[in-house]
């Protein structure tokens, strides 16, 4: 008798669960690793994908309800448009989000998958549709503020002689949509743009040359990389410009260590009339940077564990002082914050980032240096966004770039995380543009 009661109770529980455990006709679940919530600058694109499964007992022709600003990507094993799913069958719904086309109100919801209206009508039939769970629906906002414009991060892949570029999301700091945009370079480490933002330069340490590439202003892609000319380079590893863009400076690690200063053709970007500047303070000069006014140069002396602060006047770099700052251990990279108040020195020896104050007394010397966060390893330099709020730290050991928050008051880096950018091979120099 007791057994019967248990069986009846179980059957009632089963019946009630069947009756009340609703499920959608079509399950729509984000593919592992896919993000469905974005805060995007208007010039960015993103991708996301869902797995769609037909949970009904009927073979269905399905389609997505159109969403302004979102395009379905077909092919490569993705769901077609429309797509046919037998009972229990799945496919991957791949979507591209084009922030420039997203309405100002953003996208809140979807994707909604419906059966098509008829065999000869592929419009979605609203009488049988499903959507993802609330927490998995698309939630896309677009920033329109100029201060949060989306920048691209360019990463010098020193070990495969290429340049990667990624979207650097100003809201999250994460790097997404990374791809190789320039190839055929040579042991590059120092990279940068001319002040006009029209040309990209790469210091090729392995070929003792500098390359210049064209920049697509709308997509951020590089193209047409050629030798920029110039002469006298010896393991060049930096790209710095005078504020007017007429002079390019690079530090030379090889030989007796020096700084080259070349004239820049305003139209072609080609270099000429290079001048070699020497200083007794230079020692395996591994990187350099100029202050915003172009009057001071900061040169990292890897062998001497110092930073030379030199006066700059046109192509002349002299009167160097290597006594300011401390804590350097095989300094590899020098980056000046956009506000000119702090210098970030990446150290190959200690694998630390040292942040120093830049004295605002006209000398520009370094003071109050201390180690801050940032998983630096190898060669290269820290990259900063235009606001100076995010720092990107390359790590050649892990083939990764970390992103850190910047406390602008003291320049400290904190909350460093993997940037999620992919495809880096020996990342060295990082520049945001």
């Amino acid at each position, binding site marked *: 008798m007791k057994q019967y009661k248990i069986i009846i109770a179980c059957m009632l529980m089963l019946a009630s669960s*069947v*009756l*009340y*455990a*609703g*499920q*959608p*006709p079509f*399950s*729509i679940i984000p593919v592992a690793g896919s993000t469905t919530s974005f805060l995007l600058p208007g010039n960015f694109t993103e991708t996301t994908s869902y797995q769609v499964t037909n*949970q*009904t*007992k*009927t073979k269905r022709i399905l389609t997505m309800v159109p969403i302004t600003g979102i395009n379905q990507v077909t092919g490569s094993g993705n769901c077609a448009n429309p797509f046919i799913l037998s009972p229990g069958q799945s496919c991957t719904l791949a979507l591209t989000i084009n922030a420039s086309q997203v309405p100002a109100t953003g996208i809140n919801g979807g994707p*909604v998958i*419906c*059966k098509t*209206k008829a065999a000869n009508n592929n419009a979605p*039939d*609203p*009488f*049988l*549709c*499903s*959507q*993802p*769970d*609330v927490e998995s629906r698309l939630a896309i906002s677009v920033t329109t503020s100029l201060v949060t414009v989306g920048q691209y991060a360019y990463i010098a892949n020193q070990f495969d002689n290429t340049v990667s570029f990624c979207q650097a999301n100003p809201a999250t700091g994460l790097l997404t949509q990374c791809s190789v945009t320039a190839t055929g370079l040579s042991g590059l480490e120092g990279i940068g743009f001319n002040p006009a933002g029209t040309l990209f330069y790469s210091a090729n340490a392995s070929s003792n040359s500098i390359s210049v590439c064209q920049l697509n202003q709308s997509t951020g892609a590089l193209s047409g990389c050629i030798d920029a000319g110039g002469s006298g380079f010896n393991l060049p590893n930096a790209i710095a410009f005078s504020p007017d863009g007429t002079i390019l400076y690079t530090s030379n690690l090889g030989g007796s260590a020096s700084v080259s200063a070349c004239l820049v053709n305003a139209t072609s970007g080609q270099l000429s009339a290079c001048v070699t500047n020497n200083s007794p303070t230079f020692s395996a000069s591994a990187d350099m940077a100029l202050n915003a006014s172009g009057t001071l140069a900061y040169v990292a002396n890897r062998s001497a564990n110092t930073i030379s602060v030199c006066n700059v006047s046109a192509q002349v770099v002299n009167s160097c002082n290597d006594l300011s700052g401390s804590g350097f251990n095989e300094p590899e990279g020098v980056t000046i914050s956009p506000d000119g108040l702090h210098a970030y020195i990446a150290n190959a020896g200690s694998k630390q980032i040292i942040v120093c104050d830049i004295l605002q007394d006209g000398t520009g010397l370094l003071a109050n240096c201390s180690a801050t966060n940032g998983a630096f390893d190898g060669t290269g330099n820290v990259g900063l966004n235009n606001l100076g709020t995010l720092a990107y730290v390359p790590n050649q050991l892990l083939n990764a770039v970390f992103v850190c928050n910047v406390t602008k008051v003291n320049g400290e880096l904190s909350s460093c995380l993997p940037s999620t950018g992919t495809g880096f091979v020996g990342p060295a120099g990082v520049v945001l543009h």
Partner: protein
Amino acid sequence: MFRPTIVLFGFLLSSAAFATEDQYVVGLTPGWDWVSGNKTQTLNLEPDVQKTYTANNNTKSFPSLEFFLGWQKAHLLKHKLIGQIGVDIAAAGNAKLKGNIWDEADPAFNDFTYSYQVQHTQVAIKGRLIGDCGLMFEPYISGSIGVGFNRAYNFTINPLISPAVVAPLFHSNTTSSFIYTIGIGLQKSLSQHFQAAIGYEFANWGKTQLSRATGQTTNQAPSVNPLYAQQIQLSLYYIF
């Protein structure tokens, strides 16, 4: 149910026809109603889209009001009965019909609840036969036939799970049909002109049906035929 009503109504009419003393009577009857009759139904909203609408008959009660104007004939059947016949106009509040929706007519996709309201009005010929035995409370029976108007409206759907997407809603629709009522109760004479009664009435309100949704290519929508109502009534009559 239809045949006994006709018989009862005919008896009431014939009783009144043989009466000898005429008086006018006007009555007002507030009531408290509840409906039944909603049944689980499977509909093809599109040629290849089928949904089941289950019925939840746990409906709430709602108020109604009835106005009666007619004639009263006393001293029927050897002074044992009083007959009344007249026009009855009634309106009921909002009956709420509800249940669940199964996508694909499959209980595995029990993904929504639905509800809609029915507003009922009717015009009928009503007869009442009241005992005249000198009791404190005289028994009565009543019956009516007429035409009813059922307005189905305010159809809503609520998802039970977040991935469920609500389909286009059915539109409002008014349906007219034959209706009848039968009732029993007790009546007490309060004075020479006033009488009060308490009773129970069963009504067939006829058919109610929603109209198809926007974009729907088939002509199927939830319906109830017939919709039954039961009513507790408190009546006050003035005889003159």
